[in-house]
């Protein structure tokens, strides 16, 4: 298992290199940062000087080599928009993102599993139909709309939570619930269908015949066998929550990494985009590996040789 993990980490590292090349080239194709960095009244000469200063006049492979040489030592370059080291900027915002993603993920998994499994056991009931309606709504409504409605109702009208910002636990609730809605619906749908597939199986009948309680049959014998696809989805969703949070972060003024990435892209702040994408890609790789390793825990038939 250790060998497997190391091998996967090696592949992950290659992946990271690939991602860094793609983002490096894509950002440079996206346009000239000097247009945004210089004041409106800068001259062409100013532009040429700034390009030299930023090293953008060098050939692309040379620029990339300089980037890699710095990156392996933890130096991802200086942000051009914010006057500080790019990685420092990214790491300063990571805790806020992890906090939000952590709560949103717990909510999504909790609500998704509970509603999905329960509705599978009561197929066709009123509860099942309510869950299915909820799932359709949860998948269909756009996040920005839900976020704004939540702010209007729960913050402005009722005053239960603050509208935006970070600070107390109360600040976390609205953005986390908004962020959890969509993944919870996906989780619910998947766990429901996975459970439906499992609950008709012979070993479930056998478990019942042996006199197990219904709860034990469903949550132990059933869920464990339905868990693999659910774990896969959960891993993808958690990674998504770290890298893909810009809408929620913008609406709720949450100081996380998603808003930073978008601002940096609009400002053509290459160093920050590269540093942030590397962090997000590393999170994806680690979470994917973690999910793969949990397969073995969930299903003893899986071996990592």
């Amino acid at each position, binding site marked *: 298992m250790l060998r497997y993990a190391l091998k996967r980490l090696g592949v992950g590292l290659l992946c990271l290199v690939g991602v860094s090349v793609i983002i490096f080239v894509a950002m440079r194709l996206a346009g000239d940062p000097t247009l945004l960095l210089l004041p409106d009244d800068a001259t062409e000469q100013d532009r040429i000087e700034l390009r030299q200063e930023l090293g953008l006049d060098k050939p692309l492979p040379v620029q990339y080599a300089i980037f890699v040489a710095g990156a392996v030592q933890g130096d991802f370059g200086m942000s051009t928009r914010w*006057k500080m080291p790019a990685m420092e900027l990214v790491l*300063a915002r990571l805790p806020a993102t992890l906090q939000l993603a952590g709560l949103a993920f717990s909510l999504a998994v909790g609500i998704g599993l509970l509603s999905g499994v329960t509705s599978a056991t009561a197929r066709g009931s009123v509860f099942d139909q309510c869950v299915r309606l909820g799932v359709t709504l949860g998948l269909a409504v756009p996040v920005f709309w839900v976020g704004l409605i939540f702010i*209007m109702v729960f913050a402005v009208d009722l005053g239960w939570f603050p509208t*935006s910002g*970070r600070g107390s636990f109360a600040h976390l609730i609205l953005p986390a619930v908004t962020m959890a809605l969509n993944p919870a619906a996906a989780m619910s749908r998947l766990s429901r269908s996975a459970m439906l597939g499992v609950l008709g199986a012979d070993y479930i009948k056998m478990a019942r015949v042996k006199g197990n309680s219904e709860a034990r049959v469903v949550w132990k014998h059933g869920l464990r066998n339905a868990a693999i696809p659910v774990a896969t989805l959960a891993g993808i969703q958690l990674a998504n929550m770290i890298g893909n949070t810009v809408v929620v972060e913008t609406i709720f003024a949450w*100081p996380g990494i998603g808003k930073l990435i978008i601002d940096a892209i609009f400002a053509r702040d290459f160093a920050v985009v590269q540093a942030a994408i590397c962090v997000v890609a590393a999170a994806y790789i680690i979470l994917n590996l973690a999910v793969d390793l949990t397969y073995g825990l969930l299903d003893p038939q899986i071996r990592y040789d």
Partner: protein
Amino acid sequence: MQTRREFLVSSALATAVGLPRVAFAQSEDSITIAIGDEPTTSDQTVAWTGVDYNTIENYAEYLFPRDTGGEIVPGLAAEWKYSEDGKTLDVTLRDDVVFHSGDKLTAADVVFSYERGMEESRTVANRLRSFDRIEVKDNYHLTFHFKNPDVTFLPNRGAAMMASKAYFDRVGEEEFSRNPVGTGPYKFSSYAVGEYVEVERFDDYWGAVPPIARAKFVFVPEETTRVASLQAGETDLIMACPYYAVAGFDAVGDVKTVKLPVNHPTMSIVFSTQNPEDPWHDRQVRLALAYAVDTDAIINGVLFGVPQRLAFLAPYEVGYDPDLKPYPYDPEKAKALLAEAGYPDGFDMELNYAITGRVQMNPQVAEAVAAYFEAVGVRTKLVGEEWEAYRSKYNAAKEPGSSYVALFTHGRAGSPDPTYNLGLFFRAGGPISIYNNPELDAINAEATATMDEEKRGELIKQAVRLIHEDVPSIPIYNNFAVYAMKSNVNFVPTQGFNFDLVLVKDMSFA
């Protein structure tokens, strides 16, 4: 038809009555202000872009401040006098100014601040193109030398904010940037990345000590959330209140708005006029398009009646010409002019616009303009792009032979001195200019070197007339800064030129 945001706001306002709500406690002597974006630096000598100044100008100051009426008044510089030829400026500093670090402001700090500003901030460097050097006479007397006369130096308040050399030498650059000290009425107290900046009153301030003890600037990028934070009572004042919310606020009463005509940018339709193949190479066609657009209807129907339209300059500017009137809305005349110019059946045209950036409702305005062009037979294809891509295309339009029309953040009114925008946006080869008119350039060059306001005013009038006649751009509306605040907050905003300022010293609670 209601937009998403109008719907949200009106529904929230409608339900705001009668429901139980929790009020967040507010302290009397501290104020919470929501601004759109986080500053890119805390260091006043490094500040370079619009968002930086919102917070920094509360703790750092220029030598020549503006009062809330926009006049340059004595401040850190107690007195100043230009030489006859405009190439030197004698300045006397106040001798009772202390930085928040306890260090006294002297001529050495001025020299240090200008040097560091020119080194670290491209904006400062650009503002000081004509600047040569500072000659120190003693601790409180110095002379600025200029390579050539610069009428924008004082209107730019002297271009660089003051920082303490003694503090820099004592604590080093990193600490200097993280814990900036200035001479302002407030001192920098804390900063949370992505969340807020806090300032507190400086009791040894050289000027009048302001009424509010503490201020917290929270960063709320989404405008609808900014509006909500004010409605929920979490913030006392918001900057950049979206135009759509103004009417709702004005109707409800527990929130009020203050509008400041900053006038820059002037949203305009701009033409590259150097390609004879283009229909709009012909002045008559451009004039026809100017007559085709009902700008008042756009201001009232699309922009909620908030901004204004000027023919060119604002009444407070040097060279303002009260007799110059905006192009009238006259679609019949537009059609006649087009027919006369040889386009009775119109023509095809692309209209470029930005879908991101600091200007609100760009797409809606572009769509409205296009509809007016269509109405006189000009088949208009809308091309909306993200800001940088859009701006690259604009830059490419400087090339002779390029073919380009756009809704652009043009500079007419609202610059430090009118000659500044004329040089930037209308001079051949000017940094943001796609226009070419040697006659205009000659007049503007003369105006730029004329220190006498009256004479300069006459030259500016001539230049403006020339542009108005030739129609290289059609002004649609001038920008307004809108602040919304609780009804118990009093605030008088100051125009900083090119952007609006949110100075806590000018706020108080009723």
